[in-house]
């Protein structure tokens, strides 16, 4: 289980309802992202949260469209909305990518859960790569459209 600040989430949708708004990104070497989402005059890259965190594959049912990052996140379910007394800093013992993934740890109902950092889902390099892949895909589509016309 993970936590995310409610203020970081713009919208929550089922994956089924978003099918028409999602475009596949081809030839990306960011395997956790396979689609981009055109939604509310914005383009977001859809990150499979399970793959991002190295978890076993599941069938995500929901998309969280994040407010500030150009990211939408595929998740299995929303457990609940709750208030937490505070977010504890991630102990210095953690020295890897998790320092980018999490803004800290929260104690919720006898469990310690990591609080995800929206900007941690994609690095600047990954974003730049996805943008190039998306542009290349758009150019290909335009050429195909022109050829058919």
């Amino acid at each position, binding site marked *: 289980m993970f936590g995310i600040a409610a203020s970081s989430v713009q919208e929550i949708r089922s994956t089924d309802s978003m099918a028409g708004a999602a475009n596949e990104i081809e030839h990306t070497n960011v395997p956790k992202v396979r689609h981009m989402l055109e939604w509310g005059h914005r383009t977001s890259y859809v990150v499979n949260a399970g793959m991002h965190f190295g978890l076993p594959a599941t069938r995500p049912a929901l998309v969280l469209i994040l407010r500030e990052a150009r990211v939408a996140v595929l998740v299995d379910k929303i457990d609940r909305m709750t208030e937490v007394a505070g977010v504890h800093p991630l*102990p*210095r013992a953690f020295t*890897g*990518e998790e320092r980018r993934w999490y803004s800290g740890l929260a104690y919720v109902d006898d469990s310690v*859960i990591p609080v995800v950092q929206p900007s941690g889902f994609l690095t600047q390099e990954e974003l730049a790569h996805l943008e190039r892949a998306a542009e290349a895909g758009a150019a290909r589509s335009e050429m195909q459209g022109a050829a058919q016309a």
Partner: protein
Amino acid sequence: MTASNTAKRSFVLLRIGPRRFALPAEAVAELAPPVKLHVFPHTSPSVAGVIVRRRRIVPVYDVGPLLSGRSAHGEQFYLITRGGGGAGEFRAILVSGECELATGEVRPPDADRQAYVAGTLRTSEETVDVLDPDALIASAQVRERAGVEARP
């Protein structure tokens, strides 16, 4: 190490895998009983998870691979130590419940010993390595950087 502090210091003897080690008693805050180990995805293999102890979130290290060549994940007790060097952060290592207090003569380590061995403690029954907790954690982190693997 001077003769005066070797004679008076106390040590906590602990078992990790088949071997016993000693930690300076002043570095040990508590031997915590089996409490829930909270785990979540991360990429710091020497960290097994975190526990909550006295309202603190305490990271738990598995130093078994470093000290005995195999994980201490089966162990259920946590020896909580204070971070040195002004860091002040508490951290725990997974240990068996077999811990005891001992005093004895401490000798400097042989020159070829690992950096985390601060000396050799001789009790009435045995001779064990005295661990430097800060150097132990640092060595575990160096070891993990040499071969990082994700821990779900």
